[in-house]
């Protein structure tokens, strides 16, 4: 018996020794260290709300205030076209959130563009930049299309006129100072082989710097109707937020925090001209680039910021009002009963899975529109920083 107790005592001692490291091995103080690898740093003053991450800046064209201001001058300068008839601002009006109010604009030769002019709102946060091109991902690339593109012709700059256009810019004393300030590392940035590259980078910098985060929604000042509309917008019944989510109200939103975002394009059932899902040529969206049948009629979801200012809607400007857009979605697509584009878009086999139709009352539509209108940023459309500098010169002031 004594031996048993001794044995038990030894085991008790052994188990006590086992517990000792548990008692002594007290964990360290908790902590979480965060390293964003410089993602919150920029040489450019973005003036963003705290909840908005910085957009990506291309390594070969970091943002600067000088490039932004030079790009602003170029954006509003009609000399940057084949016949001095149009500038970027011809199709991108500040009071319309840099859209133009037309279904489809005309270029310098009067040829009508097949696509609706998109608003230029928070473009810096978009991972693709046109209605249907999944591989066009930099603003610098995109800027070359209206300047130099020939199908359709917009600015109409080509080999026959680009030297003259450049000479016109070189003759303007404002540009000498602006180019020197924007590209101080170059001796003559408006002359020589870098001139057009500098123009493109400056235009891209201005477009990239058009930021709009000052709406009633951003200030948390929604009206009662807009609050109801917000609930409808974010409801499972309407599913709007799936394609128009994030702080930029588009699922094509990207920023410095984004590692990878697959380009998102959607067929919303606007057309079905052959009963097999066809969209009118040449507006077939992503399909134009990929040639894949499944991509027929797929277009990028635009940001809904300032959407109340950018009518008419959809890729071809064929939908006049926000109420019409909502009605199309409520019907699960658009049924065009006559004309060359007749067809039942509701039956489009390539239609996005979220376009399924829903019931919505007139009052709910009003509320939803009130919410969309709450995304209008009046500071943005009245901000003199984004306005025509040439107009200010003519008025005797300095931009």
């Amino acid at each position, binding site marked *: 018996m004594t031996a*048993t*107790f001794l*044995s*038990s005592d030894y*085991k*008790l001692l*052994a*188990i*006590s020794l*086992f*517990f000792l*490291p*548990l*008692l002594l*091995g*007290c*964990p*360290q*103080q*908790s*902590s*979480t*260290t*965060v*390293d*964003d*690898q410089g*993602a*919150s740093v920029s040489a450019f003053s973005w003036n963003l709300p705290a909840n908005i*991450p910085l957009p990506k800046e291309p390594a070969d064209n970091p943002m600067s205030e000088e490039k932004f201001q030079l790009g602003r001058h170029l954006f509003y300068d009609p000399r940057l076209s084949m016949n001095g008839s149009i500038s970027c601002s011809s199709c991108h009006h500040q009071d319309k959130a840099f859209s133009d109010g037309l279904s489809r604009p005309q270029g310098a030769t009067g040829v009508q563009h097949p696509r609706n002019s998109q608003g230029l709102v928070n473009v810096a946060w978009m991972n693709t930049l046109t209605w249907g091109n999944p591989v066009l991902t930099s603003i610098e690339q995109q800027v070359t299309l209206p300047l130099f593109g020939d199908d359709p012709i917009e600015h109409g700059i080509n080999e026959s006129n680009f030297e003259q256009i450049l000479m016109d810019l070189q003759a303007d004393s404002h540009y000498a100072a602006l180019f020197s300030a924007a590209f101080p590392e170059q001796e003559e940035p408006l002359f020589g082989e870098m001139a057009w590259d500098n123009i493109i980078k400056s235009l891209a910098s201005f477009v990239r710097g058009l930021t709009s985060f000052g709406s009633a929604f951003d200030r948390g000042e929604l009206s009662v109707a807009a609050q109801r509309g917000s609930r409808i917008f*974010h*409801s*499972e019944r309407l599913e709007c937020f799936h394609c128009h989510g*994030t702080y930029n109200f588009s699922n094509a*939103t*990207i920023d*410095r*925090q*984004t*590692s*990878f*975002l*697959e380009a998102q394009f959607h067929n919303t059932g606007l057309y079905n001209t052959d009963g097999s899902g066809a969209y009118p040529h040449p507006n077939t969206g992503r399909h134009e680039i990929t040639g894949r049948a499944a991509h027929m009629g797929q277009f990028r979801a635009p940001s809904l910021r300032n959407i109340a200012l950018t009518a008419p809607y959809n890729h071809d400007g064929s939908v006049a009002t926000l109420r019409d857009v909502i009605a199309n979605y409520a019907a699960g697509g658009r049924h065009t009963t006559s004309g060359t584009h007749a067809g039942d878009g509701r039956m489009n086999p390539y239609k996005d899975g979220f376009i399924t139709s829903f019931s919505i009352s007139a009052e709910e539509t009003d509320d939803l529109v009130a919410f969309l209108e709450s995304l209008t940023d009046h500071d943005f459309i009245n901000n003199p920083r984004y306005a025509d500098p040439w107009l200010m010169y003519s008025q005797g002031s300095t931009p």
Partner: protein
Amino acid sequence: MAYVFAGLYAMKIRFIFLLLLSPSALAHYIPSLTQATTVDASLAVSWSSASQVGDYDFWQIPGTLMGGDAWPTRKGVDINEMNIGLSHRLDDNLFAVIKLGSHSAGTDSHGAVDLEHAYVGWVCCDEFGPWVVEAGKMSALFSPALGVHGAERLSSDTPLVLDVLFGRHFHDQGIRFWLHETGGFSVGAELWKGQAFPATDSEKGGAWDIFGRYQWQGQRLHLSAGAWLYSATAEARADHRYGGGHQHNPVAPPGQAAAPFPDIRYSGDTNIGGLHGAFSYQLNQRWQLGMEAEWMQAKLDGIVHKNTGIQAQLDGTHSGGWLQPFITRDKHTLAIRAELLSMKNTLTGPAAPVLAAESGLANPLEHDPQRLSLIWRWQWRDHLALRAQAVRDNSLVEREHYLLLGVVWQQRLWPHVAAARDHHH
């Protein structure tokens, strides 16, 4: 005669004590040849004086990635769990176990009943074993506390470290091979499909573990100790308590806020090592004292990410455990459970700040979660126990005090022998 009664009384006390410490038929059990078929049931109900979090808040301990079934305590009455299990010995070597269980869940729980155990086992070679192979859906054996049900613990709630590192419950499909309590030693290995947190059941997911432990039962002293290693791989693991599949926007009554749950995912490895031990000492016929403890440390190496395409590298070390001394007099047990967690995380990448905040890994106050419980359990009847618990919960930054009152029913329904329990193989 008095000696006989004293002996019987001591045996009864020992039985009650073993009931508290030993794994039950519902946790893990190899049916014996003498009682080929057994049916066991348990029910644990508790009442809490307060909720750990508000009705429209998420229970997210700062610095951790939680998930599984680690639901917070909510004010009022809660059915902690219900279980019913069937075990059958087919022949000298084969046996099968099926168990259905239902656990408390979130506010929108509908009391779903899950098939928690459905496995067959093969046991043999008593001369140099026994060796046991089990396959099917079952609880893990590597950490004894992980397979213990609420009805079998002294306390009504699960240790914090199990909530954080294993999502409270562990039921997975897999295979286990182990040497079963041979000379007091058990060693084994388990391979899992990955359906249990923190793994995922995916192409690169899954888990495995190895464990060893020693148990010894003397005249007055009972002791056990063990160590284990567990390794899990996860792909886009969600916190399925609040996230996971299709996200719904919560709706709160007017005047209250209900934020949507940020559905942050984790992809990577979780390697956890643990030590556990328990001892008890019978002072005399009426009094016993003892202690249980487990400590574990997890290494997280992976990425946290979100469906908007943002991600950050996570390198984390999460440690924690509990220490539970107790003293038993007759049918009453008084215990104190002290729990502590510690998390060190490093998140790297452009999205690290936002993902740290949304995932819950951020811990700006460097909070060390702690919980202290004073527990009283009264084995009122052979199969019915009452328990009361005063908790000082500091798992979140804001400290919460609450009381838990509970009742536990635990019984072998077949064969019906009052206060009888099968021995383990």
